[in-house]
């Protein structure tokens, strides 16, 4: 499956009356929405309102209290999702190149690391250990995952944090391209990402 191949399956996400609890406290309930292929859904909400919790519930990491999450027209569920969370998932001692190679293998990537690190602007840093990357450089590396392996649905948690202006435009372009390909993007944000969202989802005020 090459990166260039659009997602013919027309992936679709349906969430029905979802409720999530953390540590015995209900964070939100009765959340329902539908996101079509090609959509960019922006999640908004105050700190602690449950954006991350929702994304992790969608990714299947967090068991919801009630309700269900349905992916439609996904042929290989194991290859449906990308998740970029608050944590970048880097190992301090491993080099940028090593990370890209590892993810390509782990996530079943087809693209070569070089092109990717070029795109996200990490060219020239390939041999630096992640430990020494600046905050924004580390974030760029995490974002590079999205390009390594083609997956229809992207779940992004404040993807633009720590990125400079250039980084943000790169991110915006990547997201637009993915949506144009028929991909589906859900992003938790505090400020607009750039590309105009097809849908804005506000999560109720935190406790």
């Amino acid at each position, binding site marked *: 499956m090459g990166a260039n191949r659009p997602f013919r399956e027309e992936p679709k996400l349906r969430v029905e009356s979802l409720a999530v609890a953390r540590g015995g406290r209900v964070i939100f309930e009765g959340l329902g929405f539908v996101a079509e292929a090609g959509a960019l859904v922006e999640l908004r909400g105050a700190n602690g309102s449950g954006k991350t919790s929702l994304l992790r519930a969608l990714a299947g990491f967090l068991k919801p209290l009630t309700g269900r999450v349905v992916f439609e027209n996904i042929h290989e569920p194991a290859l449906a999702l990308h998740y970029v969370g608050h944590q970048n998932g880097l190992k301090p*001692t491993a080099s940028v190149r*090593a990370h890209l190679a590892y993810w390509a293998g*782990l996530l079943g990537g087809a693209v070569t690391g070089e092109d990717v690190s070029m795109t996200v602007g990490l060219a020239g840093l390939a041999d630096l250990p992640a430990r020494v990357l600046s905050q924004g450089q580390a974030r760029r590396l995490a974002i590079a995952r999205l390009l390594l392996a083609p997956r229809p649905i992207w779940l992004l948690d404040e993807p633009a944090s720590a990125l400079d202006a250039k980084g943000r435009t790169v991110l915006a372009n990547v997201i637009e391209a993915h949506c144009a390909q028929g991909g589906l993007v859900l992003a938790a944000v505090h400020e607009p990402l750039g590309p105009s969202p097809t849908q804005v989802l506000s999560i109720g005020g935190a406790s």
Partner: protein
Amino acid sequence: MSALAATFRRDFALMLAGGGVLAPLGYFVGAAMLVPLAMGPERTLLAAAGPPLVWIAAALAVLATLERLFQADLEDGSLDQMLLSSAPLELIVLAKGAALWCAVGLPIAVAGAPVAIALQAPPALIPAIVASLGLGMAAFIGAGLVGAAVTAGVKRGGVLIALIVLPFFAPPIIFGAAVAQGDYVGSALLVLGGCALAAAALGPIAAAAALRLQAE
């Protein structure tokens, strides 16, 4: 499959980075060298009590490498990616275990030879001891995976892990020590092989189940 290869390569590299193979070796050799220090110069005593203690040093050396095995993955978000992999988590954990065995278990088994000699083991037994250590390490790691997975969420799990894992270390240690003392070597090696197989087969499954619950 390449997911497993990638995991193995990555974990193996990570374990060699910083400290390197030398590090767990240093722990193993160091711990073993403490024995004569503590027991004093009487060589008869050492000859009788020393060899089995190779196994304690080995067990504790593995234990020392277990603590952060999954805890780090959980904290830095790598676990999320493992869950999203195209390969089942069980196999990925297996690959991690295999990497640990190659990077830590094997070197310790080999280093077991000089250490056993220093602890006055009869030279004739050395090959058997090394082989038994190799098997025992696999058993330790298999059991250790589960302990590491269960305690991944707990701060300073490294010491809690000891509580959880050491009971499972007991059988390999008993039979391994028997080998080191030259008692029923053959059958003991068989049992160790059994432990190793069982641990390698069941460990990853149980560990994967625990890890799925850790990612919240």
